[in-house]
């Protein structure tokens, strides 16, 4: 149960920054969604509802010691796999088997899988403290995380499965992976990315068109490759994916230093920028608040991340550290990919901006993840070394 000293342990700066972010979210969402529906406050009201529900869920999470989650982690892992396998048998929506139709909402198991796997993998690594230099453990860790990841990849949902890659390596690092091995992995990932672009270069005459056939040694779907090509050459597809990229850059660039003013971004208010209340909401901040505003927003995000890393550092045990680092990796990766996408340094993936994009289920999952961080935070006590 929650003891009084727990409240004293809570990192209030962290909480305050998150609260500030949620306020910013509602403010920017008002401007971003005014022209979407007939009621200009429709999305703000719904988002607020999800924030409240999320906060309730967050508080609920606090009541259970994370050690307890660790104890039931085999069960969690099993349920998670069942959900991920089950969803593949659901009817496809928008060409992917990602959702369970729960009548009142669409449930996306891969979202929940992120926090479930953070818990399970933290438990997995904590049990092998000081043993992560051994190859059999490293391989076991890959298999452990790889299984749910592959299931998500098969839905297909490349974006979310990449979040798992980020979580995997961040947690492995804190879990004691030897620096040399880590370096090798980083080089391999870099090489893999370069290899894909290199192969595509030859298959598309320098990204001038789509490949006529898929290079078999790149295990990606056609549309995923298309997005990569368009990321390099957005002019190739000025009406769809490329259009999103171009319009987003125009929105942000035209914001200038100080922005066009709240509610006055022509790219947003004129609907030139699609998905501006969901995936591209960061562009709204960029256009209306300019460089100054978007930098402060990024600074707020990275402040929260840095604070989370400090919470992880001060956690009572490795299990706590790992859970918090996993959550931070999840957020950090999504923030970087999403913001990077809006400014044209990352390809377009469907990853929303945590706590900023409109969306009920992701808000709920993000709140649960925050609950895990605070759960570890308040139980950190004074760890003696």
């Amino acid at each position, binding site marked *: 149960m929650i003891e009084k000293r727990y409240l004293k342990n809570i990192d209030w700066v962290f909480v305050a920054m998150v609260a500030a972010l949620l306020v910013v979210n509602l403010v920017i969402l008002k401007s971003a969604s005014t022209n979407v529906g007939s009621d200009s406050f429709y999305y703000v009201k719904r988002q607020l509802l999800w924030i409240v529900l999320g906060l309730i869920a967050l508080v609920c999470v606090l009541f259970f010691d994370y050690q307890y989650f660790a104890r039931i982690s085999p069960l969690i892992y099993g349920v998670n796999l069942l959900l991920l396998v089950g969803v593949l048998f659901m009817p496809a929506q928008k060409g992917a088997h990602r959702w369970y139709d729960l009548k009142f909402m669409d449930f996306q198991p891969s979202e929940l899988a992120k926090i479930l796997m953070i818990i399970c993998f933290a438990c997995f690594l904590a049990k092998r403290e000081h043993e992560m230099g051994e190859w059999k453990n490293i391989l076991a860790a890959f298999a452990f995380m790889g299984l749910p990841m592959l299931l998500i990849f098969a839905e297909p949902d490349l974006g979310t499965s990449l979040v798992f890659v980020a979580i995997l390596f961040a947690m492995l690092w804190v879990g004691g992976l030897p620096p040399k091995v880590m370096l090798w992995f980083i080089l391999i990932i870099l090489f893999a990315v370069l290899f894909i672009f290199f192969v595509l270069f030859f298959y598309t005459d320098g990204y001038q068109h789509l490949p006529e056939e898929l290079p078999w040694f790149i295990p990606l779907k056609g549309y995923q490759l298309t997005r990569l090509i368009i990321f390099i050459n957005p002019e190739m597809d000025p009406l769809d994916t490329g259009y999103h990229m171009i319009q987003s850059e125009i929105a942000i660039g035209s914001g200038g230093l100080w922005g066009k003013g709240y509610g006055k971004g022509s790219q947003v208010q004129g609907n030139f920028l699609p998905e501006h209340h969901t995936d591209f909401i960061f562009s709204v901040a960029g256009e209306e608040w300019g460089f100054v505003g978007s*930098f402060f927003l990024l600074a707020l995000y990275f402040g929260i991340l840095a604070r989370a890393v400090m919470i992880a550092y001060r956690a009572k045990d490795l299990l706590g550290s790992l859970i918090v680092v996993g959550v931070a990796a999840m957020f950090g990766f999504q923030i970087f990919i999403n913001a990077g996408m809006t400014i044209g340094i990352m390809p377009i993936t469907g990853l929303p901006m945590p706590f900023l994009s409109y969306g009920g289920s992701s808000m709920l999952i993000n709140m649960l993840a925050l609950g895990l961080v605070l759960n570890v935070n308040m139980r950190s006590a004074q760890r003696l*070394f």
Partner: protein
Amino acid sequence: MSELENKKNAEHLFRFKSIGIFLAICLAALTSRLFFLQVVMADEYTTMSDRNQIRILSTPARRGNIYDKNMQELAISKPIYAVALISTEIDDKEDVAKTLSGLLQDPEITPEFILDKIKTHVRSYEPIIIKRFAYEEGLSIITQIEEMRVDLPGVMIMEEPTRYYPMGSLAGQVIGTVGLISADEQDLVENYGYSYNDWIGKTGLEKTMERFTVDGKEIGLRGKKGAQKVEVNAKHRPVATRSTQDAVTGNSIKLTLDSNLQRVMEDTLVEVIGKIQKTRPKAQAGAAVLMDVKTGGVLAMVSYPFMDPNDFATGLSKEKTAYYWDENLKPMFNRAVSGTYPPGSTFKMVTAVAAVAFGGWDPNERINCTPSAWVQPKAKCPRAHGNVNMYEALGVSCNNYFQEIAKRAGSDALYQAGWQLGLGHTTGIDLPGEAAGLLPNEEWKNQRFSGWEQQWRLYDTYYMSMGQGYNLFTPIQMANYIATIANGGKNMQPHLVDQVLTEDGIAIWTFEPVVQGELSLTSEQLALIQRAMLEVTTGRNGTARSLFANFPADIKVAAKTGTAQTGLVGDDKDKDYHGIFVAYAPYDDPQIAFAGVMEYGFHGGSSMGLVCKAVFEEYFGLNSVPLPDELPESME
């Protein structure tokens, strides 16, 4: 604390510090890209954003009016209604097309027609005009559309200024028409600020005065379009206005044309043609010009069949297309400046000028006209005129006399005289499509033909002296030629536009009469030729002696009749003649000159002569004498 623990702590710290550094690198990467976009490239992206959302909507300028010399309105602008739609605002285009087509009840405007218009419309944020209505005509349909607003998303009623010609077909070809800019007028769009939805002057003065420019300053009818800078959203729907620049109304023009004279000329021409048609069904067209001999200002200009510019003001309807595109009648064609006709005997004053000015011929010298003098290849006279001098010869139109003096003066003298009198080259009148006509000479014949035909022969000189052969002139050239004789030898530039007025009626430009050339004749010599023309109406045997009999003594008319072989393939050489008439008055103080041609009118005097008489009567305020019911077969 043990050393081992210290080491562990240090490693723990290292791992978290490295995460911190990694985060800092990510933040730096995002920030530097943001900096690049929002600070370094801000201007470029602002331009792109503006291009996205700012549209310049042009508002049409009201076109300037056209007035006659007494400030009677000949062309004005008045609003009409147009049913238009904005395609980007319509979701179910087929449904709207069907509903709208049903409402308009126009067999041409089928749903497919509307859909096709939508498909071919380039600038989707600009309204597509489906149909235009005159105010009264459209009122009920407009009410219906307003009532059905909900079922017709994106459909709008636009009010646009449209051309209206209060006097209908009066001077139609002179005033001209306006029409939608066409695809082959790309040059206008590129260089003169037009867009493909614009209406521009297509023919007549509407065309020449469209962008009338003086000293590099445009002061024409079109005015200046207004511009409205509006913000649009991604669906191109305007959401706000940034700035507005009002349209500038075009300048009006005041003509030298007198609508009263014009009406008399038109009415009489219609009446005379109607009567002539009874015996000569081929007589279906004609043209005439009345000119101020001192200034070159055109007082009236008729081309029959008529053209009503109102028929073109909202687009030509199907029923009227057949009339306007008739191959034989060609109502669009301004015969007065674009039609070329053999002048027949009306050319004989040129021959006279040639003989006197360049051949040293004495007009008092007599030439005997007897059958024995009509040696081949000379053309005969209808009867022997006896021993005639120039006055008598012109009065009776003696072919023998003029062939003889032409032979003595030579063909080059004929050419020079014709040229000085304004024949064979355009007069420079401010109308489009003026024909140069044809004043032949030896060099021309040499180039035009080959072999035996190449040579200029004596019979060519003979034919030319009588206005037959290759001669072809426009009625405006003929009128100008007569005016030159009348005014003492000054070839004036004919013109229609007298003044350019601002919207408030202030003259900002006035035509200054232009002398284009002078005749190489002394005034005494010219007076002889003038006297000869007087003989036509006053001489005992003058070919138009009875025509102006009712005129008072102080308004004597100098004239010449002409009956010209058409020279057209398929015409009967003995029956099919154009009737030509030229005249000026008063003889003692010349003010106005007339030239008219009636296609297949046979005799000049009994066809265009009557038109001339009626116009002169109107001009001088004489009591007009109604035309006889039966026209005399011949007055020559």
